């Protein structure tokens, strides 16, 4: 790919760059924000019921009736979390979510744990949502099952592309599938429930299943509850992205949060009820939602329309993370806990590097886990509940130091939220530990350690670059070494002109790889250059770089007061592909010298005409 064409291709794919001053215009209305920030939470209603049933089914068909009480517990938990987060939205209108709240109120350590947990959660959201979306496709078209990894990766690339174009345009693109899904599932639920109430659809008992694991019912209930908590993933996204809302940001964000909770709660309970009513159990190759859909509409056009809507929202649920991950990683980068590149706004006013990192990490997970939702789900939720707990605990401390009216009841709300989510965290960690939760429990401290090492590096660098202890070192000499080809040409002569202009001590050096007589080489040199000595190094093994680098090192060691500059004559071909026709010795030398202390490297380009 010619380098000169890259900007054109980038502009064609991603659109023209936006001015920094246009940043404030990239604000979302409540409806647009519901699509951008809630697709993750809403889409989890497509697989939360299935996860509950999968956890219960190991105990046999007798325990499947736990699914409804479990769903009610999850709705109760959702209400607690949402009420708690609405407080956070008002207290922190600039966003940042659990990381900022925990860092400001509980200390840096707690903030970093929350940050690490959230980053993992965002990556898993992309992986799980895309895998579940592809599962909805393969439920309707089983022939595609063996292509699920390729399909998943394709969807990630599409979402990445849409996000790199900018948040407003992605809100438009993602709004349609989100509202289409909400409408479709309500059509399914209302049709299903009306048939139940009209008595045209009799309740069916679940198939006879024997227990494959003998576990206490309470433990299985808790396992089902822990699995169903997948429905709560993504709830914090609105609180993290408050600043993306239109003014008044807190009010709009809070209203959107309650809209999202009401829709999510009603979907989870209705889907679970219908699954229970139709006696549906998880099956290999077809999702629970697909089975409900088939039971209500058969395999007619409405079935396929709802499957398509489910696929669309699940695939696009990943978009919530593409809004949240880059934003959080940019905050971490601004605090020097993550590489600075993550804080850079791209051409389209989005944190492009964060989006690319997220897509890469989620893609890797999908490949490693074979794009299998059920293998990915156990890794999920630990991060979510750690961030919930730390955020709510942070809010308790926030209200304790606050002088605002109503701080006592606000503190009580958040304290209740913190206690509830911490209990759920323990439950999830215990019942899911051997199913994969241990991976996340191990990964979080490792990421926190990495955060600290990154910050340490930035501090050490800043200290070393500080001008406060700068001592001027007087350089009394300056030697310029010009590596040249054995036969001089215009590029070399141009470089020598420049070398002479910066120092009186210029030495040209060449490597004789062809076994030519050094006297002949020097004689050829003298015909064109009579004021710069040419050192001819012999290279019995035809290596060019090694003798040159060793010679440069020797010259550097010659005198302590001597500054050595290596000046590289470089020609630039008129066409990009002409580079392929030439040795890239200069480029390799430049790369090798990059790590040599005390040596200045510069190049003198000579542009060739077409």
């Amino acid at each position, binding site marked *: 790919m010619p380098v000169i064409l890259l900007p054109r291709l980038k502009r064609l794919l991603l659109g023209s760059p936006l001015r920094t001053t246009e940043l404030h215009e990239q604000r979302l209305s409540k409806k647009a924000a519901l699509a951008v920030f809630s697709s993750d939470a809403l889409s989890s209603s497509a697989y939360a019921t299935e996860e509950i049933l999968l956890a219960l089914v190991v105990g046999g068909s007798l325990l499947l009736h736990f699914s409804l009480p479990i769903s009610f517990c999850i709705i109760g938990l959702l209400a607690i979390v949402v009420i708690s987060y609405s407080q956070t939205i008002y207290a922190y209108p600039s966003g940042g979510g659990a990381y900022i709240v925990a860092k400001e109120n509980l200390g840096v350590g707690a903030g970093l744990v929350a940050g690490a947990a959230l980053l993992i959660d965002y990556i898993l959201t992309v992986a799980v949502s895309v895998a579940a979306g592809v599962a909805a496709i393969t439920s309707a078209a089983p022939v595609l099952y063996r292509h699920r990894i390729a399909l998943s990766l394709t969807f990630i690339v599409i979402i990445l592309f849409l996000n790199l174009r900018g948040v407003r345009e992605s809100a438009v693109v993602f709004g349609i599938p989100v509202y289409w899904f909400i409408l479709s599932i309500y059509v399914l639920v209302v049709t299903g429930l009306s048939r139940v109430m009209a008595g045209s659809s009799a309740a069916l008992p679940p198939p006879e299943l024997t227990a494959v694991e003998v576990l206490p019912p309470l433990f299985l209930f808790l396992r089902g509850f822990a699995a169903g908590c997948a429905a709560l993933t993504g709830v914090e996204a609105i609180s993290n992205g408050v600043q993306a809302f239109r003014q008044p940001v807190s009010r709009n964000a809070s209203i959107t949060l309650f809209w999202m909770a009401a829709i999510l709660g009603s979907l989870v309970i209705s889907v679970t009820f219908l699954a229970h009513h139709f006696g549906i159990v998880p099956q290999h190759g077809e999702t629970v939602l697909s089975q409900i859909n088939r039971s209500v509409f058969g395999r007619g056009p409405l079935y396929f329309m709802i499957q398509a809507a489910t696929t669309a929202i699940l695939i696009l649920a990943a978009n919530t993370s593409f809004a949240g991950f880059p934003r959080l990683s940019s905050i971490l980068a601004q605090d020097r806990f993550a590489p600075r590149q993550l804080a850079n706004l791209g051409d389209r006013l989005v944190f492009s590097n964060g989006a690319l990192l997220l897509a890469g990490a989620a893609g890797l997970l999908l490949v490693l886990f074979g794009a299998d939702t059920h293998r990915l789900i156990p890794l999920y939720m630990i991060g979510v509940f750690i961030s919930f707990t730390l955020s709510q605990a942070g809010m308790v401390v926030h209200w304790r130091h606050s002088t605002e009216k109503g701080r006592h009841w606000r503190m009580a709300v958040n304290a209740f939220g913190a206690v509830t989510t911490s209990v759920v965290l323990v439950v999830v960690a215990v019942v899911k530990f051997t199913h994969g939760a241990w991976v996340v429990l191990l990964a979080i401290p490792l990421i926190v350690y990495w955060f600290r090492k990154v910050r340490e590096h930035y501090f050490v660098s800043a200290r070393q670059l500080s001008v406060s202890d700068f001592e001027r070192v007087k350089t009394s000499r300056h*030697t310029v070494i010009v590596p040249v080809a054995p036969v001089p040409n215009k590029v070399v002569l141009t470089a020598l002109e420049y070398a002479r202009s910066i120092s*009186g001590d210029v030495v040209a050096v060449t490597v004789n790889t062809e076994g030519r007589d050094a006297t002949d080489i020097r004689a050829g040199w003298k015909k064109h250059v009579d004021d710069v000595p040419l050192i*001819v190094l012999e290279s019995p093994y035809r290596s060019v770089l090694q003798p040159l680098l060793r010679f440069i090192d*020797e010259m550097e060691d010659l005198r302590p007061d001597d500054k050595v500059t290596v000046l590289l004559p470089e020609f630039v071909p008129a066409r990009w592909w002409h580079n392929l026709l030439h040795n890239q010795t200069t480029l390799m030398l430049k790369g090798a010298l990059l790590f040599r202390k005390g040596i200045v490297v510069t190049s003198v380009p000579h542009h060739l005409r077409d």
Partner: protein
Amino acid sequence: MLGEETKQKILRRVRGLLASIDPEVHLLDVVLDSTRQQLAFVMQKGEWPLVVGMTWLDYASHRDEELKNRLEQGLKQRLEAARVRQASELE
């Protein structure tokens, strides 16, 4: 820059001395700096370029035996530096 005649004279003298120190070391060139005070003897042993520095005054005032000692000392130092570099390259 050294005149050709002077350079050849120096090269002849130093090559003779180097042959008795280490016959594997070849003197490639000698360079005089712009202050006309500092000489750099560029040598090579096998693949390794070695540069030994000396002031023009020392070069001119030393007898052959003294110059040989200086060169031997300088070479020893540069070969040791080369050995250390080679070891770090192999790491």
